[in-house]
């Protein structure tokens, strides 16, 4: 067990393998919270979740409660959800609207910028008491890219622009699909939980290798997955049944990584232009009427399949959604999957997305459930101390520089993306305060 006496944390991450402690050790988990989640830029919500002044949603960064709220000046503010007096959580709801935030315990009240507005029975405060000193803390830094709001608990470190780097293109790829150029995260949320480490879900997002096996139950006798998108005439060819192996079109997928552990898988299967249904055709028309036919064709040839913004946010281009992975304990993780509505698209099209996301990524879905079972069994298997190492060596040394994306690329059937995540993990964990 890791107890701080490891000569170096770096010993846990070696070429092509990582030590089981990174999934099982509670002390390392606490270090991850302070050195990764308190340092990185963390997705805290989307503009569309708080359209009006006073609208708020609550969540956590590194398990610490925060409030994302629309201030009177229109800007989104991220406040620490902890009364400056005795520490109670000020907002108890998951979402709502409040002009002032009032603590239940002794009635202190705060504005949507965190400023302390009033203290009950102020005559009891010490003569030197200044309510200006007792606001709800704002997080150190916030940033917004096309409606995606991020926060960092640390005042120093890489800027948001440095952190996000070329991943803006992945966000653009999704947002541009909306005829009005805006997406809406206002269609509820799928919440699921599993008894396993948070990194198991993070690694899975860019793992194309598991699909023909973990999700074997979702393909038919010809190796084709069920159709899972509005207007699809059939799902992706995952397995080549005649040759008894992973289908060529699936094997051709590439994965890409950049700094900070971010990455994505390429799109060889989406063929959005070939989809057809009344809802899909109406959507194409609405998109073309806003951006022109040429640009529509370009947008409907999306480049990205799955995207990971390390440490804990993913964007899926197939069944479009935003996913947030919330570590609760070393062996317990909650995942929130937000369906996306494309602003300006016909209602039927947006419903098509919501409906099929139920089928692929709800707690009762056909695809996600197999992954959750894999995470649970991995966590149980890793109790074994007879084999201390997890192998992530597929394709080690076959990484190639990709000048088009200014990224590093390899077959998505390999494990480069996981290795890149552990490289970022090491950088975070080795950095001194």
């Amino acid at each position: 067990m890791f107890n701080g006496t490891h000569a170096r944390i770096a010993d846990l991450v070696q070429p092509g393998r990582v030590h089981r402690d990174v999934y099982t050790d509670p002390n390392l988990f606490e270090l991850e919270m302070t050195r990764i989640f308190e340092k990185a830029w963390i997705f805290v919500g989307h503009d569309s979740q708080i359209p009006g002044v006073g609208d708020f949603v609550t969540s956590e960064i590194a398990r610490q409660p925060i409030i994302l709220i629309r201030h009177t000046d229109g800007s989104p503010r991220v406040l620490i959800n902890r009364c400056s007096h005795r520490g109670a959580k000020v907002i108890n709801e998951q979402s709502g609207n409040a002009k002032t935030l009032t603590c239940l315990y002794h009635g202190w009240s705060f504005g949507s910028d965190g400023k302390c507005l009033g203290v009950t029975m102020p005559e009891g405060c010490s003569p030197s008491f200044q309510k200006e000193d007792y606001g709800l803390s704002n997080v150190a830094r916030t940033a917004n890219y096309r409606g995606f709001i991020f926060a960092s608990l640390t005042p120093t470190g890489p800027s948001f622009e440095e952190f996000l780097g070329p991943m803006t293109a992945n966000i653009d790829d999704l947002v541009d699909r909306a005829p009005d150029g805006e997406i809406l995260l206002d269609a509820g949320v799928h919440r699921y939980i599993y008894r396993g480490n948070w990194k198991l879900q993070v690694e899975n997002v860019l793992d194309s290798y598991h699909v023909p096996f973990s999700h074997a139950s979702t393909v038919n006798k010809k190796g084709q997955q069920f159709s899972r998108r509005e207007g699809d005439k059939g799902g992706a060819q995952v397995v080549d049944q005649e040759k008894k192996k992973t289908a060529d079109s699936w094997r051709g997928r590439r994965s890409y990584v950049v700094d900070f552990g971010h990455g994505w898988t390429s799109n060889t299967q989406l063929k959005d232009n070939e989809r057809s249904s009344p809802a899909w055709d109406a959507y194409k028309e609405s998109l073309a009427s806003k951006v022109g036919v040429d640009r529509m064709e370009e947008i409907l040839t999306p480049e990205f399949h799955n995207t990971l913004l390390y440490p804990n946010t993913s964007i899926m281009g197939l069944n479009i959604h935003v996913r947030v992975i919330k570590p609760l304990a070393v062996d317990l993780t909650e995942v929130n999957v937000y369906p996306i509505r494309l602003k300006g698209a016909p209602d039927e099209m947006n419903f098509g997305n919501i409906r099929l996301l139920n089928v692929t990524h709800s707690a009762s879905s056909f695809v996600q459930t197999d992954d959750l079972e894999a995470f649970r069994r991995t966590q149980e298997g890793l109790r074994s101390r007879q084999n201390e190492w997890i192998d992530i060596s597929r394709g080690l040394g076959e990484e190639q520089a990709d000048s088009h994306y200014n990224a590093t690329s390899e077959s998505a059937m390999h494990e480069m993306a996981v290795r890149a995540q552990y490289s970022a993990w090491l950088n975070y964990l080795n950095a001194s305060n």
Partner: protein
Amino acid sequence: MRWLLEPNIRPGLIILMLQTKMDQNFFISAEDFVPSGLAGIDREPFELFLILEARLLDLRKFWDWKNLYTEEGVYWVPASPNQKDPYKEASLFFDDAPVMITRFVWLEQPRIQIKTPPSRSVHMVSNVIVETADNEAGEYLISSTMSMTEYRQDTQRIFSGYQFHRLVKTKDSFQIRLKQVNLVNCDSAFEAMAVPI
């Protein structure tokens, strides 16, 4: 409302396409729903139907369960307590005929990880109330309470809630136009579930 199926249904080639939606008042706003409880109607045939419907799930006779539905019948489990319909927000289940077929083909696959081993369940149905009855059209809305105890690999969990059935009379029984289950904990984070509730 009409769902389209490929003429020859094969797993993997099921077209999950939406044409039109149910009427606005088809689904039940569970939070606002006040039971009326029509007196003078024999509850026994309805009660029996609900008990047998639930028993089919416990017996894992999923195709028989599907056959209880009309061609356009739907099974809906909302993901929030005040959800008005499945069209604007995420749902725990929203299974129409094509999704049901895909689900039950899937449940029969040998390599379904989440069901090796499969779960076992016991349903209980109680507090059955005939809410509306149109004897001429043979259409009924029934409300009841349900609980499902599910057991798999040393873990037991309980789902419970209110359920609503829109039934239509057939020659000697009923068919389901809607089964809606409003779980008391519908907006919590769930571990994986795979079989209907």
